[in-house]
């Protein structure tokens, strides 16, 4: 069966510090991978998606970047965090962009 992991679960970082959130998927190959951000009590904002290794598409201009160094690994990064980067970050995968999407447990990021 397929599983998706995200870590860390929670993170408190000072403004200006770097960020690295990792997401890995098990039990499938060549998944489409997605990073979303969710503000408190709000909907999901798609940040990045990837259809293959090294292929990253950005949906919104921002302070963040993403990379996919391996087929089932998706990393969200920032060189210098802003207060506005606070939020709940969700990783998700989808088999070749068809059907339902499977979400990780999320990372709660607080930038102080």
């Amino acid at each position, binding site marked *: 069966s397929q599983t998706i992991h995200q870590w860390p679960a929670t993170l408190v970082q000072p403004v200006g510090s770097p960020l690295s959130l990792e997401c890995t998927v098990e039990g499938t190959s060549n998944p*489409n991978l997605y990073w979303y951000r969710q503000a408190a009590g*709000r909907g*999901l904002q798609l940040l990045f998606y990837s259809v293959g290794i090294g292929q990253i598409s950005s949906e919104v201009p921002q302070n963040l970047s993403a990379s996919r160094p391996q087929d089932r690994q998706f990393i969200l990064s920032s060189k210098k965090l802003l207060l506005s980067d606070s939020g709940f970050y969700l990783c998700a995968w989808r088999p070749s*962009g068809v059907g*339902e999407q499977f*979400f*990780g447990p*999320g990372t709660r990021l607080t930038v102080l």
Partner: protein
Amino acid sequence: SQQGEEDPQALSIQEGENATMNCSYKTSINNLQWYRQNSGRGLVHLILIRSNEREKHSGRLRVTLDTSKKSSSLLITASRAADTASYFCATDAWNAGNMLTFGGGTRLMVKP
């Protein structure tokens, strides 16, 4: 821009009552999906309805789709306190590539 918009934004009912949430969208879709999110957790897929389907059932869930009105509804019958969560619709549009577009969600509270 959000493809799906849920209505109402928040709903409070008593245990045993039915809960109805609506979703409107703007462009032609391949399918529409409903997800549930418990507080502080990832989203969980509930049901997918294809554009050529009008109604679908899964346990206490009933989803309808009206492509002429570009709208869908999710009905939860005989609600339970454990149904308390946020519910999101997501559209899989023909022109959206490999991405689902999520609405802002309906926050459902079921009082025991």
